[in-house]
Each structure stands twice: as C-alpha cells, then as structure tokens.
C-alpha cells in the first residue's frame, strides 16, 4: 500500500476506508458548491421577479446581468463543484482507495475557485452581460472568458484525477469484483466530461483570443455548433450523475440493489455513445446546417440515448420496489411505495427528483427536440421550463437529497434542523415543479425566454400578448418564491451543519440511518453499495 495507514480512517457506518486527503477535497468542493447555489439562487429569484410582469423588479441591464450570473453560478459552478465532490467520493471513498494525487486535486480546486471568482466579478462589473451562452457578436471582457477557461481546466484536472484514482484502486486491489454501479455511472459521466471539455476548449480559447483582439472575429454559426458540443453533453453528465445518485440513495435508504447490473450498465453506455449527437437539437432553427443533418441527429441517433433514460426510468423504481417487497411490503400494488421511509429527506427528495425529472423535464425534451415542434418552441419559455424540470427539479434536487447523507458521513456532523430538511425538499421540489410547469405554459402562448419586457411598453408599435400568459407568469413568480425558500433552507441547513453541527461519535448519531441490504434483492453483483 503506497499511502500510510494514518492517512485513512475507517467509517464506522459504512465500513469504508476513507482517505483523509480525499475527504478534505470532498469537503472543500461541497462547500464551494453551496456558496455558488446560494449566489445563483439569489440571481434566480431576482430574474423571476423581473419576469413576473406585475413586479418587473430589475431594470433591463440588471436583468441580463442577473440572468448571466444565474446561468453560470447554477448550471456551471454549483453543479460542477458538487460533481467533483461526487467524483472523489465515488472513486476514493466508495472503492476504499487513496486518491491518486491530492495535490492535483487542490490545484484543480484553486483553478476552479479562481475561475468562478473572475466570472462573477466580471459579471458584477457589468462587463459580461452576455448570458451563459455568450453567443458572438456579444462580447465580454477577456477576464470573463479567462475565468471560464480556468474553471474548465480545473474541472478537467479533477476528472483526470478521478480516472487516476480508479487505476490506483484497481492496481492496489482495494475492492473486489467490478466497481459498484454508482461508480460505473460516474465513470460514464466522466467520459462524457472529457469530450465535453474538449469542445469547451475548442470554442472558448478562440473566443478569448477574439476578446483580447488577436482574432478579427468569431463566426456565430460555427460558435453555436461547437458551443453546443459543450452545452448539451454537459447536461448528460448531469443526468448520468443524477441517475447514479438515485441508485445510491436507493441503496442507502431502503437497501436496494440494481435489478439487473448488465442492463443498467448497458444503459449508461448508450449515453456515452449517442448523447453527443443530440446537441443538434439546439441548432434546429440555425440556417447554417442542413435539414438532413438536423433530422438525423435529433431523431434516429438520439432516440438511442432516450432509450437509455427509459431503461433507468424502469430500473430505478424497480430496484426500490423489489427491495421493499423483499422486506415484506407486499400488500397491494403500492404498499412498497406508501411504506417507504418518507420521513427521510433523501427519500422524499429522490422521489420528487424522479417525478419532476420524468414528467416535466424528461418527457418534454424529446418533444421539444423534434424539428417540427422546435420551430414554434425555440427560444420560448417552454425551453426554460423544460430544463428547470431536468437540471433543477431533477439534478439539483437529487444533489440536495444526497447531501443529507454525504454531509454526515464526510463532515462527521449531525444534520442541523432535521425537521426542516424534510420541508426543504418538498418546498424546493414542488416549487420547481410549479416553476417548470408555469414556464412551459407561458411559453406555449409564445412568451420568449431571455426577454426583459414582453409587452414592449413604450415602443411605437403594440404587441399583443394573450392575457393567459400574464397569469402563468404571475404563477411562475409565486412558484419561484417557494422554490427559492426551499433553496435558501438547503443553504442554511448545509452551512449550519458543516460549521456548527453536533459532532458524530458513533453510527447511532447518524441523522438518517443507512439501511441494511434488503434480503436477496435483485440479481446485483455489486457489493452493498
């Protein structure tokens, strides 16, 4: 063994050998994630209150500034800091291994923090009102692109460190058999991350050079094509991470195992192979690419990735049903569901995450990604509603739910305000469900996204907007407030727990119990995780 034994502690709950340097890296990345979700959430609320016509809070410049800050802090910084923490957890901790190179992990962290700071400062200075996509000819100051690049390099280092740790664990034989499904799913996410980040480099480096005056211009059509090679697959990283977390939460809370390892793993492979093609659904109204190209990429090929999601849509609840039935909850069709440990916020959070992702985010994606429908839905609020179902109701909520286990296990603290934690997931889950649904409904009346004033008040020409749209926008504002309260509670609970929570001395102190594996559940070959 190349790391001394003092560098490890044995977790008295899970029995994992936890490498302390890995634990520290998980801690700092998780804290950074929470800071970003707080900043992004404040921006999100401000933006939502601006889109509620009766409130119309911010002026035009600050609306676009806040929207830029919201997109970046949420979609990029919160999600990726959390995923990096997850990658270290899924490799070093779950496999009982040392982390391959802790110094690289710290370098990655410093780069990511520096990048996030540069971007946030640039936005607040008003020098990067370009929204998250920064489509040319919109141009931000160089510091903004530099921030994005530094953050991406840091994330790339973290992904490489994950792979290196997998190699170390294998070589030092710290686990038996094949890696658990959780780690396998994260590996799929990490592979997608590599080609995602390659697209990122290919587009942000020239754009940076353009911003400092070394390149004369950037072709908007090429920019969009390459940028979405980053923008879309990165969503599949989030989906793969979220689904891995669903499986993990099932195991932790009801002792489930995958119903069939081969099928679940095969589904992750389909993501790796086919998801990049789906990027084309962002270009369905672009004049630069042909119809044949659009139709091929957004239908036949992409459906193979949709099939993967359909498989998980069955296997995730099935694993839980099977485990619950093995525990004796066999009466009627749904006793297993009714008798699930609903008082545990990880369970409620996961159930809401599955529901919102499936019915609001997942279902609407393939519809909006159909060329004929996209022609009318493109750049309307329907799109924003769709992805608040996926990446907020689905991914973000799954991350929050998992936190109620990761924080006690990694920070060795008891969750502060456990009752509030339950309220937190429900407020956030239902608030986001409302947000997503009302955005889509408003969008179906043609309300555009990224628009400060749909009434064009004061303009020389009048614009007719269906009054129903105003009602949906008002309901959206109310949903946003509910979701924001849920999000704020998450930050509050996380911060108080991490810095002031009661220390855990024994497994008894664990706020939410870790379930024993259900007897003979599934055909899984994985160890208990």
């Amino acid at each position, binding site marked *: 063994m190349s790391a001394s034994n003092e560098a490890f502690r044995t977790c008295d709950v899970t029995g994992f050998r936890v490498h302390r340097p890995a634990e520290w890296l998980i801690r700092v990345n998780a804290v950074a994630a929470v800071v970003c979700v707080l900043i992004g959430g404040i921006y999100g609320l401000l933006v939502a209150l601006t889109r509620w016509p009766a409130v119309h809070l911010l002026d035009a410049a600050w609306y676009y500034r806040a929207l830029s800050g919201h997109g970046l802090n949420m979609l990029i910084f919160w999600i990726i800091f959390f995923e990096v923490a997850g990658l270290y957890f899924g490799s070093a901790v779950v496999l009982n291994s040392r982390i391959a190179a802790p110094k690289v992990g710290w370098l990655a962290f410093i780069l990511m923090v520096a990048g996030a700071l540069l971007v946030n400062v640039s936005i607040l200075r008003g020098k990067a009102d370009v929204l998250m996509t920064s489509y040319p000819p919109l141009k931000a100051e160089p510091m903004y692109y530099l921030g994005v690049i530094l953050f991406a390099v840091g994330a790339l280092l973290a992904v490489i460190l994950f792979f290196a740790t997998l190699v170390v664990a294998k070589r030092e034989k710290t686990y038996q058999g094949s890696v658990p499904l959780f780690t396998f799913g994260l590996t799929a996410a990490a592979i997608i991350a590599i080609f995602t980040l390659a697209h990122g480099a290919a587009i942000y480096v020239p754009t940076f050079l353009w911003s400092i005056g070394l390149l004369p211009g950037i072709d908007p059509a090429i920019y969009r094509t390459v940028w979405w090679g980053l923008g879309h697959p990165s969503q599949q990283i989030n989906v793969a991470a979220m689904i891995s977390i669903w499986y993990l939460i099932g195991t932790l809370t009801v002792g489930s195992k995958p*119903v069939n390892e081969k099928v679940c793993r095969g589904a992750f492979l389909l993501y790796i192979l086919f998801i990049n093609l789906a990027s084309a659904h962002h270009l369905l109204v672009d004049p630069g690419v042909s119809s044949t190209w659009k139709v091929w990429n957004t239908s036949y090929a992409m459906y193979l990735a949709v099939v993967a999601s359909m498989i998980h*849509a*069955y296997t995730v*609840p*099935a694993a839980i*049903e*099977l485990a619950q*039935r*093995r525990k004796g909850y*066999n*009466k*009627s*069709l*749904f006793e*297993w*569901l009714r008798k699930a440990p609903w008082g545990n916020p990880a369970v409620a959070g996961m159930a809401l995450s599955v529901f919102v992702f*499936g*019915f609001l985010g997942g*279902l*609407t994606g*393939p*519809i909006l990604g*159909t060329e*004929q*429908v996209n022609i*009318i839905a493109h750049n309307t609020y329907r799109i924003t509603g769709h992805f608040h179902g996926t990446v907020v109701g689905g991914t973000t909520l799954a991350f929050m739910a998992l936190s109620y286990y990761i924080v006690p296990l990694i920070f060795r603290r008891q969750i502060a305000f456990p009752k509030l934690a339950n309220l937190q997931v429900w407020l956030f889950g239902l608030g986001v469900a409302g947000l997503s649904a009302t955005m889509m409904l408003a969008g179906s009346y043609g309300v555009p996204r990224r628009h400060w004033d749909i009434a064009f008040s004061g303009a020389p020409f009048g614009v007719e907007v269906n009054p129903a749209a105003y009602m949906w926008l008002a309901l959206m504002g109310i949903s946003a407030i509910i979701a924001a309260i849920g999000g704020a509670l998450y930050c509050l609970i996380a911060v108080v727990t991490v810095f002031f929570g009661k220390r855990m001395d024994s497994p008894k102190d664990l706020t939410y119990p870790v379930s024993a594996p259900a*007897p*003979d559940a599934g055909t899984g070959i994985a160890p208990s995780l």
Partner: protein
Amino acid sequence: MSGKGNEKEHGIETPGTMVLVLIFLTVFAIAFLGNLKWLATAWWVK
C-alpha cells in the same frame, strides 16, 4: 404475484413500477401527439 412470501418467482416482481411506467408512457404519448397536432392540421389543409 404480490401478496406472497420471499421465494423467487418468475412472474412480474415489480408490478407497481410497471404501472408507474405505463402511466408515464401514456402521458408521454398524449403530450407528443398533442404537440404534433398542428403538423397534422397543416398536412390536412394541404
């Protein structure tokens, strides 16, 4: 099917999930067809 003990059976072991997935697929189909309705109309008019 349900209501039985722990022995491994070869029937459907997860009937509840089957029902949930069927509900999902039904909603999916209705939503998709609803969205394509305008297309059908356009084709009709032609």
